[in-house]
């Protein structure tokens, strides 16, 4: 480890951001390297001193000044009493004294809590003047946990581990009101017996036990799992109800046991997990605006090759400028297609070959996909509007698409079905000017049964191609091909597109670089949008492809909008800079002046339309900012709105967020805006559906046509999904996506969005 690496890892440790592997490596370094240990001590001294310094400053800020004579009087009183009282009383008095010295003049807390790193919560108190500070709760304190886990230490050694999304109010030393949430409670002392969790539908009274409650928001029923001892389920009026004993899990409807739960879901967390993993944190403020001129600059160390050599960066001399167009990305079009059955393939009698029958496959109005007129409808497959064949062991059939001009296709989505046993394979070929490339090995999708199944095939990087051919091989069963879509994904054009960069650094050309990789700079061989291009429609992202695998180093990327002279800056470490092998993807920040809006493309989201970005801060065109709930410290924005950026959609947006991890619990939250009644630009509330999906299978969703709050408010809504029991045909490792859907698509009106966050909790601690 270099000295800089050691310091970086120490700082990550201090900020709770270090990984297990990094901690192990740091420990080894500290044990072996005395200089590293010295550095560690210095950082720790500083860190601890800062904590002390800030703690002291906090106390001074929040505590009335205590006159010295009061302290002296207390000490005198203490000494006199010590001489009179026994040891027990002395202990008590000492405790009181220490309390006096250490605790500000606040309402004594009833409970305290800790949260797992990465949690998101809000703590409010019923009284402001004597509210406890820090993570302490008094009677009336309300804790809203949007993400993560909180561990509550309540009076009488009652302990609770609560998982988001949850909301609770501490009523008194023995009563916690749980509006919704999932929590494990442990009562280990006799004094704690009688501790009561009040849910919206019943009172769960402890009779000396450990029990878990799962009470999702808006549900009439809750799960009660008694792990040890017993609890009593009382009515809201306090009327005593049934006693549930250990090792029993029930679904409660009011005080009634509706049913037993035989297969409990994911276990309750018993401890705070080491951290909460965030999959997405999106403020809907990245992308490109229509009709704008952009200038990109980059510090040389931002990109390094794997040997550590810096790139040349982009400066005033090596420019990267482009202008965006006025419309959305133009989909890749199919100009013609041909169907060929080979030896052994038998045409289905009702088959309609493309181009050979008026009811066969046809191109949609955008010429971007072939469809059978019944996309996704299994009944449609049987209606004869498809192309199909029956194969033998050696048979196959091909459909060839001519894209007219050369394109680089990133994905091909094939929607088809097969009777009986699975289709053997699909092979993709591309062809340009007589040169054909093929997948090295056939792709074998998991298809079976009479169902419409959609699959997306990643197209390897073969360069641009004019023809795409899908080869289907079947094993004696009928295959029906219903729809083929080419991903209208803008991809960088290879070649001499970065102009000045390569001219200025001719020694770094691709060939020479490959021969002397360890000593040369990584060279950008292509960018998208291309240098000096106009009408760029990049889907909101910028891409740079280098001549060799790269990694992020340090420094900044500047994205200047030279039309309105706003400038965004991304520092390495920012999640908006991402590397995939040789490609750097930049999700540029949208900088909008207060009260303005603009159309553009959301970065990283799949949508075929431009969206509207707006900055609601300022003149009340959408929101009457003066009356928003939370004026500080967000300057007129609500606590849910973490930045002035917001987007309005009237079409579905979708984004892939990874793959499904078994035995995990996913939590989704987003801020939904409800425009002010007196807004200059009003909008009908469209309703919303936020859902987690895998392929076409909906895993969990939150849907509502009711505004989540009053006019002129922005409200966090959320839900969680337990990936312990997966739907049929969905398995761990399958793709996981998020979809946000305006319920009344195409309006009139828009759905205003902000602050989407998705976190996941594994089984550690359960």
């Amino acid at each position, binding site marked *: 480890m270099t000295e800089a690496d050691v310091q970086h890892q120490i700082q990550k440790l201090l*900020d709770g951001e270090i990984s297990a592997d990094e901690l192990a490596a740091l420990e080894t370094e500290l044990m072996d390297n005395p200089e590293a240990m010295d550095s560690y001590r210095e950082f720790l001294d500083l860190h601890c001193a800062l904590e002390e310094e800030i703690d002291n400053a906090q106390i001074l800020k929040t505590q009335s000044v205590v006159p010295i004579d009061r302290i002296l009087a207390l000490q005198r009183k203490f000494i006199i009493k010590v001489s009179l009282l026994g040891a027990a009383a002395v202990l008590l008095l000492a405790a009181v004294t220490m309390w006096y010295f250490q605790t500000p003049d606040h309402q004594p807390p009833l409970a305290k809590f800790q949260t797992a790193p990465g949690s998101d919560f809000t703590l409010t108190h019923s009284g402001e003047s004597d509210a406890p500070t820090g993570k302490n709760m008094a009677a009336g304190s309300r804790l809203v946990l949007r993400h993560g886990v909180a561990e509550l230490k309540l009076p009488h050694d009652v302990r609770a581990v609560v998982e988001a999304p949850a909301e609770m109010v501490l009523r008194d030393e023995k009563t916690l009101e749980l509006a919704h949430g999932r929590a494990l409670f442990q009562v280990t002392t006799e004094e704690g017996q009688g501790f009561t969790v009040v849910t919206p539908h019943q009172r769960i009274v402890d009779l000396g036990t450990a029990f878990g409650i799962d009470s999702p928001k808006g549900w009439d029923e809750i799960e009660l799992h008694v792990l040890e001892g017993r609890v009593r389920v009382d009515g809201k009026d306090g009327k005593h109800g049934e006693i549930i004993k250990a090792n029993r899990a029930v679904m409660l409807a009011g005080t009634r046991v509706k049913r037993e739960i035989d297969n409990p879901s994911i276990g309750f967390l018993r401890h705070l997990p080491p951290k909460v993993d965030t999959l997405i944190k999106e403020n809907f403020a990245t992308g490109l605006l229509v009709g704008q001129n952009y200038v990109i600059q980059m510090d040389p160390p931002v990109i390094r090759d794997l040997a550590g050599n810096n790139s040349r960066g982009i400066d005033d001399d090596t420019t990267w400028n482009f202008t965006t167009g006025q419309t959305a990305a133009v989909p890749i079009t199919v100009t013609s297609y041909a169907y060929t059955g080979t030896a052994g393939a038998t045409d289905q009698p009702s088959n309609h070959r493309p181009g050979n029958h008026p009811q066969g496959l046809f191109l949609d109005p955008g010429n971007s996909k072939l469809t059978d007129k019944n996309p996704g409808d299994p009944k449609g497959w049987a209606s004869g509007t498809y192309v199909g064949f029956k194969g033998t062991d050696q048979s196959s059939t091909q459909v060839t698409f001519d894209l007219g001009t050369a394109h680089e296709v990133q994905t091909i989505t094939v929607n088809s079905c097969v009777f009986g046993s699975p289709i053997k394979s699909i092979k993709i070929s591309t062809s340009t000017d007589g040169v054909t490339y093929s997948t090295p090995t056939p792709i074998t999708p998991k298809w079976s049964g009479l169902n419409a199944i959609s699959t997306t095939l990643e197209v390897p990087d073969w360069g641009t191609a004019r023809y795409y051919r899908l080869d289907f091989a079947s094993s004696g069963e009928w295959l029906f091909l219903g729809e083929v879509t080419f991903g209208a994904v803008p991809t960088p054009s290879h070649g001499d597109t970065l102009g000045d960069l390569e001219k200025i650094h001719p020694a770094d050309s691709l060939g020479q670089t490959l021969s002397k990789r360890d000593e040369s700079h990584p060279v950008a061989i292509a960018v998208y949008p291309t240098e000096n291009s106009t009408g760029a429609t990049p889907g909101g992202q910028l891409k740079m492809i280098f001549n060799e695998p790269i990694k992020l180093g340090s420094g900044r990327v500047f994205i200047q909008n030279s039309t309105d002279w706003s400038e965004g800056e991304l520092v390495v470490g920012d999640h908006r800079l991402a590397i995939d092998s040789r490609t750097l993807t930049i999700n540029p920040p949208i900088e909008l002046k207060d009260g303005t809006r603009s159309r553009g493309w959301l970065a990283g989201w799949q949508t075929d339309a431009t969206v509207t970005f707006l900055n609601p801060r300022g003149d009340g065109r959408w929101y009457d900012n003066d009356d928003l709930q939370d004026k500080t410290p967000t300057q007129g924005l609500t606590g849910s709105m973490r930045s002035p950026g917001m987007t309005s959609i009237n079409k579905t947006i979708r984004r892939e967020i990874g793959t499904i991890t078994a035995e995990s619990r996913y939590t989704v939250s987003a801020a939904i805006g409800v425009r002010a009644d007196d807004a200059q630009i009003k909008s009908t509330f469209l309703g919303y559906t936020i859902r987690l999906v895998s392929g076409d299978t909906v895993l969990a969703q939150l849907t509502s046509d009711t505004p989540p709050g009053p006019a002129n408010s922005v409200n966090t809504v959320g839900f969680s999904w337990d990936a312990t029991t997966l739907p049929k045909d969905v398995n761990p490792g399958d793709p996981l996506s998020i979809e946000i859907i305006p319920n009344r698509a195409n309006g009139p009106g828009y759905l205003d969005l902000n602050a989407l966050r998705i976190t996941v909790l594994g089984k550690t601690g359960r």
Partner: protein
Amino acid sequence: MAEKDNPEELQAYVTLMTRHQGRLRVFIRSLLPGSPDVEDVLQNTNVVLWQKRTEFEHGTNFLAWAFRITRYQVMSQHSRNKRDGKLVFSDKFLEHYAETTDTDRSYDQILNALDQCLGKLSPTQRKIVDARYETGQSIEQLATDNDCTAGSLRTSLHRIRESLKNCVKNTLSDQQK
């Protein structure tokens, strides 16, 4: 029951305990960096210190004695943390670090030097430090709350810490000349 509750000694003992709360807290923090359990460990340490007050020989090094007790409490918390799956250093490292920590160092000098160095920060830098240490929130959370990116906040905080560390070191060095 206490064997001796001499009021004067008791007063002296309470004074020592009170005076060194900060040092004990720092010692715990240094052994459990970034842990939210510091106050709990301090509280447990205080209870044990009080229970063992009669074993302390007045006139000897209170801090060294208290550090020994604190170490046991820290190791106990450390074991709990490990059991709970938290990310922690190994026992061997912790013991090595505790063994080699100089208990005679004057922590007040570090605090005084830090005071001076904090005064040299720009308002923006000071705001970042205050935000990080007042709330105890993660960098991601702070970035979200303050309308900036986690990457830029992390970079800024790292640089500020480094310059503060160097400043404190130089200040202490100047004072010793």
